[in-house]
């Protein structure tokens, strides 16, 4: 009961032209506390929609989400979100961004200072605490977003392509950081990504979704995330079974994308 239950979620968007899109259909998943699950799938298969439902920004047309046995009805501090970009508050400096969550709970900044400092140390921003957001690089901004989420101590962390806008090198460093933080904090994490490599490296569990209607197509249990805590991520990419899995999933998504091209199915 301590985990996250996704129970037969269906989501249907009614469009202004009276047609509708089945963004999700009967999606069910159970996440144990402390699990790191990555989600892959072709564009438009409902990944963001699923995450928004879990976060409580959208109410599903059918089904329900339960966290620790309690039904989710709206956004709350126990489900933190890391967005792709542009979700930081640029009118606050780095420190104020990170301490935003505790401040909203009415905790004095003097009491959170130590924790915020510690988190900023972990994400490597000890020298940028008083800097303005717009003075940071894209990778630094994502680290602030991560620290901000962690400072609030949520049970579940939801990430929608958090590293999508970063260059390869920064991205790799951030991947290691995510693994490290996952290990240290033991949070439940759902990570949406477009990179098959990233999904394989970070997810101890990986689901591949299929579009129209959005549903879970295949699920994997993977060893690489655990290995990645100790080893260099680039070493892991050389493992034989990593390469096999990568090719298999790439093929799968490739076929789905092929399928989508050329036909646009919208139900009336």
């Amino acid at each position, binding site marked *: 009961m301590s985990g996250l239950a996704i129970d037969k979620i269906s989501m249907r968007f009614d469009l202004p032209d009276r047609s509708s899109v089945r963004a999700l259909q009967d999606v069910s998943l159970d996440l144990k506390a402390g699990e790191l699950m990555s989600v892959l799938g072709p564009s438009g298969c409902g990944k963001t929609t699923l995450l928004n439902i879990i976060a409580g920004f959208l109410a599903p047309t059918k089904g329900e989400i339960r966290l620790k046995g309690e039904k989710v009805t709206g*956004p709350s501090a126990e489900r933190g979100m890391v*967005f792709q970009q542009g979700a930081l508050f640029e009118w606050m400096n780095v420190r104020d961004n990170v301490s*935003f969550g505790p401040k909203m709970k009415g905790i004095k900044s003097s009491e959170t200072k130590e924790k915020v400092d510690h988190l900023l140390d972990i994400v490597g921003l000890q020298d940028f605490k008083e800097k303005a957001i717009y003075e940071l690089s894209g990778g630094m901004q994502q680290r602030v977003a991560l620290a901000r*989420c962690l400072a609030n101590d949520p049970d579940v962390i939801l990430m929608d392509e958090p590293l999508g806008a970063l260059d390869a090198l920064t991205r790799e460093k951030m991947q290691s950081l995510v693994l490290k933080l996952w290990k240290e904090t033991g949070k439940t994490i759902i990570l949406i990504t477009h990179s098959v490599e990233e999904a394989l490296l970070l997810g101890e569990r990986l689901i591949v979704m299929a579009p129209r209607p959005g549903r879970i197509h295949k699920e994997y249990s993977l060893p690489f995330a655990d290995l990645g805590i100790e080893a260099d991520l680039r070493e892991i990419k050389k493992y034989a079974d990593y390469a096999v899995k990568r090719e298999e999933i790439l093929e799968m998504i490739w076929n789905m994308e092929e399928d989508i091209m050329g036909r646009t199915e919208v139900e009336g």
Partner: protein
Amino acid sequence: MGVIASLFEELLTILKTFLTAIPYLAAYIGFILVTLLIWQRVKRSFAPKRDFASLKTITFGDESAVKSNFAASVISIIAVFVSWGAFTGSSTIPSFLHMPEAFVGKTNFTYTAQSVAGIRDDASVYVIVHGAGVNVILPEVDDGQGFAKNDVMAVKAYRTKLLKWDVNDEETREIGAKIVAINGQPIAFGTDVDLGDIKVALTQKGTLNIKPDKGIQMEPIWLPAPEDVWGRLKEISTEGFKNYTLLEHLGFSLFRVVIGFIFGALVGIPLGYAMGLSDWFRGWFDPVVEFMRPVPPLALIPLVIIWAGIGEVGKTILLFLAALWIMAIAARAGVSGVRISKVHAAYSLGASKWQVMRHVILPNSLPEIFTGARVAMGVCWGTVVAAELVAAEKGAGMMIMVASKFQQTDIVILGIILIGIIGFGIDMLMRWAERVLVPWKGRG
């Protein structure tokens, strides 16, 4: 048809005026290009420094390479003042820069009159051309010989004057005498005789029209010299103008703007927020705001005068209305422009509705509000001057309006310059406030 014909005629006049301006425009552009060439020469020989911009091979079309050239600005401003001085004969610039000035002084010519009988006689005319505000006492002249008698006359510079040469002559126009030559040159109706300092023309009635040379300088009543304007500034800043000191005139205008703007912002910003946050309020006020936005505040002046008179209340209402819609629209745009991911982030960090409002929507709308405030202040400043032109007891606009009625062009020009400087100052102040208070503007 009549309308189109008159429009066409109007257009033709405009085009003609424009055509006469083209040589001056070309000369001005030529001058700019010459200074550019000189500047490039000077720069190359004095500072062959290689900054980043000079290493760029492509500068044409690269807008980031175009920055305002400070030297060009300085030269441009100096050029304005020098030409102002040159065309007004200012004592602040060396006299060789002066444009040919209007003739002032004494001159004389001779006319040859012819009687009905065909007898000719010469007489001299002494002409005194004097500046405005100078009292001339005409000297006595002897009549001379013959039936044509000598004359003396005074003419104001830039003006012309008719000479009834026959009032003291024995042979008058009434009995058939007429003028046939000036300084020996034959004259007829329609052709001027150019004597250098003055021109003499024969009118249809047979009198002489004396036209002193106008030069190409501006008459002070059109454009006073810079030092005259400066002198006026000193004068009315100590002695005042129409019962109020200069500082009071400007201060009152500024005060009205600030009060009107503050009220406009106090009402407009909450209105904009309400419109941005609630579809009911949006629907309720959209027609009002969208209707009032394109109505220029100047068009409201008559109505406001009818309703509230010409006192402070009327002016404040007008400026309030000028600022209100701009601020409401800015606040609405600021609220609607918030990225949904920021709001989502705040909620999932545990913020309540009120906290999202206070910590996300409000600060996120500030850049838009500042932009609106800058626009509103500019519009208010323009509106207050216009309103004071129409009716006021004090204020910058009233000052130039009254001065123009008394043809005190120097005060008019002074007022325009001060109004410009203050408007510019307001804008700079707003920009500075924006930089300090919303440094994240445009960098979200």
